[in-house]
């Protein structure tokens, strides 16, 4: 084991591979900061560059882009309320509130350090227990997915700051929006109005940019006073001792959830960021601070999405199955070199597996060294008058929405949801549960259908599988608390 890792470091520490890892990390951070053009598209564009490289160098560079983007993705969420990546939608909730309170530096700092710790813990897990975890991912069948997603949805209510009822309404609305497109069993079109733009459903990045980014600009237009960008003084740039005391446990828990849920292909990273946020709010002594700039609300999901970005390599490296679009592009790069990741990869190409793992340790250090000094720069950016910053937000959102599918239709959808998001704010409805339900809805429906078809219509499948039964049990417990408070008052905060 250690010997393997040592040989991996020998590969990763060669000057060229070190340079590739650094280049990937820097580029990844850049595209993570700019929403829209995500890691899959960037990796696709750089693919021809890798034809002439050693396969391990190609993986090192492309992996650097992927996890670098996860680092950078929090930046626009915290500074401008624009979620650039799926994993950083939740980060907007408290990260942007911290910025408004003049604590952008602390938020960015904790995000970078939390990401570093989570990333490193993730790579440690990857190098120690990958094969076991691959087995775990395989055991996760439709019944288990259904129960996990159901648990995620019951936690959606915790994403709403105010009334549990309003959170529930938005969750249901999100589920409904998630049904737009082709149904998973027959491929029949639903709510598409005959437009092929809608047959794949709404893209949640587009919806989230509207609901968060554009809606924020619209509501700021109402109040002429400038939001407080940053209070002067070096103390506010970095997290304080008090911040550390509050953040270390959420970072640890976020890393744990991110690593284990992130292994699951298809949405693992996103679910883990929501779950870790909800858990922090649930166990916090001061849940009322969540949604108003609680540092735990940044530390936990940012750690989770970085740990998940590392563990999402496990199905690729041990089974040859890519868990998301970025990882799929890395699979392509390997295949172009005649290497087919699969059950034999570790045995047949140990240099690639261990080289990639070692480069991730190094990449995480590079990213921390790169991102901490950038915090000061980003915070200075906030001193730009809001009238100009608002324009930047709108431009980033429009370009970002267009670049998802190269489609102007998506720009229209984004603007529509921007206006809708503004109305939601006016009426006190939370947007986050809607986005979560929209992402989880299709996974919920598909896994429900799969489970019911494979059990020939017997609903007992959900309790006969022990893991599924356990997840359902937790979901029932979680659902009970806000329901009780709902019955008592109707507008009390879920605690």
């Amino acid at each position, binding site marked *: 084991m250690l010997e393997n890792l040592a040989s991996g470091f020998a590969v990763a520490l060669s000057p060229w591979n070190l340079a590739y890892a650094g280049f990937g990390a820097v580029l990844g951070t850049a595209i993570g900061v700019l929403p829209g053009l995500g890691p*899959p*598209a960037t*990796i*696709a564009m750089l*693919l*021809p560059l890798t*034809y002439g490289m050693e396969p391990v160098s190609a993986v090192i560079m492309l992996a650097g882009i992927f996890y670098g983007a996860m680092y950078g993705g929090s930046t626009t969420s915290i500074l401008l309320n624009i979620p650039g990546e799926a994993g950083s939608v939740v980060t907007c909730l408290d990260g942007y509130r911290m910025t408004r309170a003049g604590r952008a530096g602390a938020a960015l700092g904790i995000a970078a350090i939390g990401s570093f710790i989570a990333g490193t813990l993730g790579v440690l897990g990857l190098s120690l227990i990958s094969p076991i975890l691959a087995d775990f*991912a*395989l*055991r*996760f*069948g*439709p019944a288990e997915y259904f129960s996990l997603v159901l648990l995620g949805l019951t936690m959606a209510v915790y994403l709403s700051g105010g009334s549990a009822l309003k959170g529930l309404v938005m969750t249901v609305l999100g589920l409904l929006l998630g049904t737009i497109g*082709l*149904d*998973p*069993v*027959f*491929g029949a079109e639903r709510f598409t109005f005959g437009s*092929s*733009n809608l*047959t*794949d459903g709404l893209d949640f990045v587009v919806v989230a940019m509207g609901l968060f980014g554009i809606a924020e600009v619209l509501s700021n237009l109402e109040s002429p006073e400038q939001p407080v960008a940053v209070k002067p003084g070096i103390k506010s740039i970095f997290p304080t001792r008090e911040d550390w005391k509050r953040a270390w446990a959420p970072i640890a828990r976020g890393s744990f959830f991110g690593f284990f849920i992130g292994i699951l*292909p*298809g949405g693992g990273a996103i679910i883990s960021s929501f779950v870790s946020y909800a858990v922090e709010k649930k166990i916090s002594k001061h849940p009322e601070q969540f949604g108003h700039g609680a540092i735990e609300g940044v530390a936990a999901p940012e750690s989770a999405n970085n740990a998940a970005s590392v563990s999402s390599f496990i*199905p690729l490296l041990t*089974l*040859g*199955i*890519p868990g998301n*679009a970025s990882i*799929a*592009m890395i*699979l*392509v790069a390997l*295949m*172009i*070199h*005649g290497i*087919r*990741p*699969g*059950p*034999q990869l570790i045995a047949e190409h140990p240099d690639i597996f261990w080289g990639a793992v070692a480069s991730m340790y190094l990449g995480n250090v590079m990213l921390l060294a790169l991102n901490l000094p950038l915090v000061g720069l980003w915070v200075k950016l906030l001193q730009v008058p809001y009238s100009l910053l608002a324009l930047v937000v709108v431009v980033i959102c429009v370009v970002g929405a267009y670049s998802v*599918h*190269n*489609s102007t239709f998506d720009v229209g959808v984004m603007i529509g949801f921007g206006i809708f998001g503004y109305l939601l704010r006016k009426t006190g409805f939370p947007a986050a549960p809607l986005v979560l339900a929209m992402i989880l809805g299709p996974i919920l429906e*598909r896994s429900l*259908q*799969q489970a019911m*078809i*494979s059990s*020939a219509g017997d609903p007992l499948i959900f309790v006969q599988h022990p893991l599924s039964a356990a997840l359902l049990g937790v979901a029932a417990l979680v659902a009970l608390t806000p329901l009780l408070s709902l019955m008592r008052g109707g507008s009390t905060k879920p605690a």
Partner: protein
Amino acid sequence: MKLASTCGIAAVSALAAVLCWGTASAQEFPSKPITLIIPSGAGGSHDMTARAVTSVANEYLGQPIIIQLKPGGGGAIGSDQVAKAAPDGYTILFGGPNWSTTLPAVEGRSKGPNDLDPICRINYSPVMVAAKPDAPYKTFKEMITWAKANPGKLVFGNAGPWSQADLTWKQISKITGIESRNVPHDGGGPSTLALLGGHVDVAINPTTTFISYIQSGKLRPLAVLDDERDPSFPDVPTAKEEGVDVVYYLWRGMLAPKGTPRPVIEKLADACKKMTEDKTVQAMIKSFGDRIQYLGPDEFGKVWRAEFELHKELGTSLKK
């Protein structure tokens, strides 16, 4: 007499000029880069093949081919866009059976041979039926017998509604009369994962998807859905040999808007043929576990049309 011959010469030379102009314009094509629209997402098998083949376009066509990804609607968005484009050969489509045959034939969406002209086929991947090695059946025939003895018990994992897996499984079920549970998945990767995890009993995917699991003994191949055995799996029979005549080609090719001039089509097809004969391209395609199987516009057009008519028929008979 002299006048007549002068007239004749004039007429001939005029004709020649027209002919020359005609060939000249075909020779001029292409005078600018060509856009190839891939109607599926980045990193799929189609994207990989297209990038490999077009990487040498400049050498054989004199102009680069620029790939533009236009995913959405299961391929319908990109297909519609090319069908509407000017038929001048500068906007072409990367075709595949899902969006260029099945979807238009069965669902009336996307664009098929009625709206697009064939340029050429580049390759095809045979698809294969596979099961877990510990399954109670060792061959395709035994699987059918087992399914008949246990009606409604066999769990099949398809790769999405009307995907190659779904369509061929419905055909197999119809021919043999077996009853099974046809579970939908979001593509071939997820259905392979479900098969490896034991959540489904049998799945159908391109051999390229299954090959590494078969080699490592995690999956057992039962049959190839091709006219001939796959050279990579000489011991695996075709479904036809096992008595079930189901054949499916997961092909990739180039398509042009309807009404594209013949010389332009030929020029593109010719360049494509040379690109697929290029050594570096062949090596890349081989590394994907695939082989080049080029077909020119006429032959490919016939195959495509026949496939379209077949799927149309299947769609009406298999749809409930």
